[in-house]
């Protein structure tokens, strides 16, 4: 058997695991590992400019590909800088393995230079973590970390590695296990057949059904099965912010996103339905509005790989724990069986009445049928997303930051394919978009990758423009610039009588065009609507350039619909500044 040092073991194990990229930043505690990577490792390393960006880039890569993102950071500040990115991945259940350096074993607990208790700090935001005690344990620990991160409900796993365990002169036998078993870790392999049968029956008996699809459908690669089920039954589908792309967004049966800024027709259909099929969704507070008033007439079928997600917020009438793909496959078979026996299922008359009602809602206030935003002398943010959709033929990878621009992108760019919409849904991390786009572009270099952002969010990780220069990352950044923290000012307009407490920058914003040019990229500013489409096309025509489109938009626009809270139900929405349901 081969003898390797701890550092060499890590380099080799990442190769053996089939890792495509390491996103990281070197420092004292990980120098042995970096030297091993430098000497002999086929996995390319992407040097970011801040560890938070390493985690977001790995995260974006993971969301787009379904593979586990890998991060390597040093101890102390390197590790703490990675925390926001780990929390982001945790909230959205993204598979990630974070290798953090630690001070030498004998110094642990002595407040050594660049020491921090990474295992302790990261504990509430990881799926699991390992502290390496013996160099010989490294291969099996790394194997376990990848298994835990990527299986069941995915999530980030931290491996904390004291520097002395990676030293080049201490060599041990290396063997990377093919598989690994853990007695205390066994995610559900399939759903309960009896429950699936019951669910199929309830689903077919429904008169006002709706399918509510979440991010779990994408994580569980079940879009195909979900689409097939919806199409066979002609049932309407709504998706969460995390589930966009789980069902084709431009399809007739798609009612769009639901929730706080969801489509009118989606929220109305949810509220009035008699049967909700929730798939890989978790009834988040941004979906339900007031839980006590949530969908009063609906029976709930809830499919999720994580038993703790079921009946956490809303009681499930039929809970099904299992991988969404296999459960939906089995449900399709059960539905077919039941319909063979009784071809009148589901009730066609009831269903056509239901669709009539939905079309009525759609016609009244639908995002794409009604006139949902006013036009002004300035460019409206919605128009920018529409222009982006047109220029990319709806087929780009879109990452986003957090705020109004995120909601506009979610509403006005219908995603037809899974894993195309990359955003921080659970944690709502500003600064996510740019590094995430870098990660996506590495995975799909020939695809259009655009980051929709605002002047607030982009400045939270703007240093990554330099990383993009180093690795020729030809992403497009679409800056919806309203010169204030848009979502904050929207809330201040609605709830604080327009007092813009610290949500404007006065005259402190940089000249973004000059700024990106300083990094070697292309900047284009757009102020007139007439120039928007042309500029957008020009940006995407430059295949090998990062282009920053600085679009000056109407600073007063709000995102609508918006749930009325507190004490509102799904159906209670603001439809515009002075119009409500």
């Amino acid at each position, binding site marked *: 058997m081969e003898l390797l040092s701890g550092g060499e073991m890590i380099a080799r194990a990442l190769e053996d695991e089939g890792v495509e990229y390491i996103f990281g930043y070197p420092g004292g505690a990980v120098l042995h590992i970096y030297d091993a990577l430098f000497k002999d490792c086929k996995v390319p390393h992407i040097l970011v400019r801040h560890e938070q960006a390493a985690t977001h880039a790995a995260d974006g890569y993971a969301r787009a590909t379904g593979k586990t993102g890998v991060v390597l950071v040093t101890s102390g500040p390197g590790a703490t800088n990675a925390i926001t990115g780990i929390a982001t991945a945790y909230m959205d259940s993204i598979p990630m393995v974070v290798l953090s350096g630690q001070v030498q074993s004998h110094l642990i607990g002595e407040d050594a230079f660049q020491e921090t208790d990474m295992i302790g700090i990261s*504990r*509430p935001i990881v799926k699991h973590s390992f502290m390496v005690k013996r160099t010989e344990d490294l291969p099996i620990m790394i194997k376990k970390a990848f298994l835990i991160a990527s299986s069941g409900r995915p999530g980030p796993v931290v491996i904390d590695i004291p520097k002395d365990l990676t030293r080049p002169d201490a060599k041990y036998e290396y063997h990377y296990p093919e598989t690994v078993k853990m007695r*205390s*870790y066994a995610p559900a392999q399939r759903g309960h057949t009896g429950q699936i049968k019951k669910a199929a029956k309830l689903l077919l008996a429904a008169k006002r059904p709706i399918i509510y699809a979440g991010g779990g459908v994408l994580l569980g690669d079940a879009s195909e099965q979900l689409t097939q089920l919806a199409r066979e039954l002609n049932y309407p589908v709504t998706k969460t912010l995390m589930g966009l792309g789980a069902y084709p967004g431009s399809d007739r049966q798609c009612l769009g996103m639901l929730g706080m800024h969801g489509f009118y027709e989606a929220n109305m259909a949810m509220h009035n339905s008699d049967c909700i099929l929730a798939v890989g969704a978790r009834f988040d507070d941004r979906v339900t509005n007031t839980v006590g008033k949530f969908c009063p007439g609906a029976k709930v079928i809830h499919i999720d790989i994580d038993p*703790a997600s079921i*009946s956490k917020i809303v009681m499930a009438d039929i809970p099904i724990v299992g991988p969404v793909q296999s459960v939906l496959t089995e449900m399709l078979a059960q539905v077919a069986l039941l319909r063979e026996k009784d071809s009148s299922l589901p009730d066609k008359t009831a269903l056509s009445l239901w669709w009539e009602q939905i079309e009525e809602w759609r016609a009244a206030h639908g995002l794409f049928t009604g006139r949902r935003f006013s036009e002004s002398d300035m460019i409206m943010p919605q128009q920018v997303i529409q222009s982006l959709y047109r220029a990319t033929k709806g087929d780009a990878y879109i990452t986003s930051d957090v705020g109004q621009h995120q909601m506009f992108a979610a509403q006005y760019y219908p995603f037809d394919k899974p894993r195309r919409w990359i955003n921080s849904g659970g944690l709502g991390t500003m600064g996510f978009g740019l590094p995430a786009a870098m990660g996506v572009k590495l995975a799909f270099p020939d695809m259009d990758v655009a980051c929709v952002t605002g002047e607030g969010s982009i400045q939270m990780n703007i240093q990554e423009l330099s990383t993009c220069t180093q690795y020729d990352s030809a992403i497009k950044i679409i800056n919806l610039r309203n010169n204030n923290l848009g979502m904050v000012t929207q809330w201040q307009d609605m709830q604080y009588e327009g007092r813009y407490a610290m949500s404007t920058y006065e005259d402190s914003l940089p000249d973004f065009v000059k700024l990106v040019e300083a990094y070697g990229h292309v900047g284009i500013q757009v102020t007139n609507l007439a120039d928007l489409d042309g500029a957008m096309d020009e940006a995407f025509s430059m295949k090998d350039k990062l282009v920053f489109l600085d679009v000056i938009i109407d600073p007063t626009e709000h995102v609508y619909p918006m749930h009325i809270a507190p004490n509102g139900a799904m159906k209670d929405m603001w439809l515009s500044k002075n119009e409500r349901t």
Partner: protein
Amino acid sequence: MRRIISMLMENEPGALSRVIGLFSQRGYNIETLNVAPTNDPTLSRLTLTTVGSDLRIEQLTKQLNKLVDVVKLADLTEGAHIERDMMLIKVRASGAARHEIKRTTDIFRGQIVDVGPDIYTIQIIGTSEKLDAFVAAMSDADILEVVRSGVAGISRGEKVLSLEKRF
């Protein structure tokens, strides 16, 4: 309702902090906590008592089960079980009180495990309720110190919390 939740957990550093952390992270209370190794050196047994509605306890046990270090878990209060809490209580025992304290201790089937000219240290084993009752019965005495082990529990009959399936 009060629950006794008992689990087998990997005897690994950090395992306990994951369990405890979950409680503060998700807003649950721990009333008592007891952890010790088992006959299997790779496992520790942790028993805790907490109070909550059925729904909340169900959510809590699901979250605990998700922890990779938690190998097996049971809510002992779901079935017949035995629970024991141990208390050491140091009281001032002089003059007329000395005899009274001895009598009360006997009634509770406690033992005086340390004796000084003015001090008794009493050991009482039983349910938490019994221990509470003893402290209440000693309300006239001058209690100097109380230390309790926290509840340890085990199911009655054939039911076993172990790695092997025994049925």
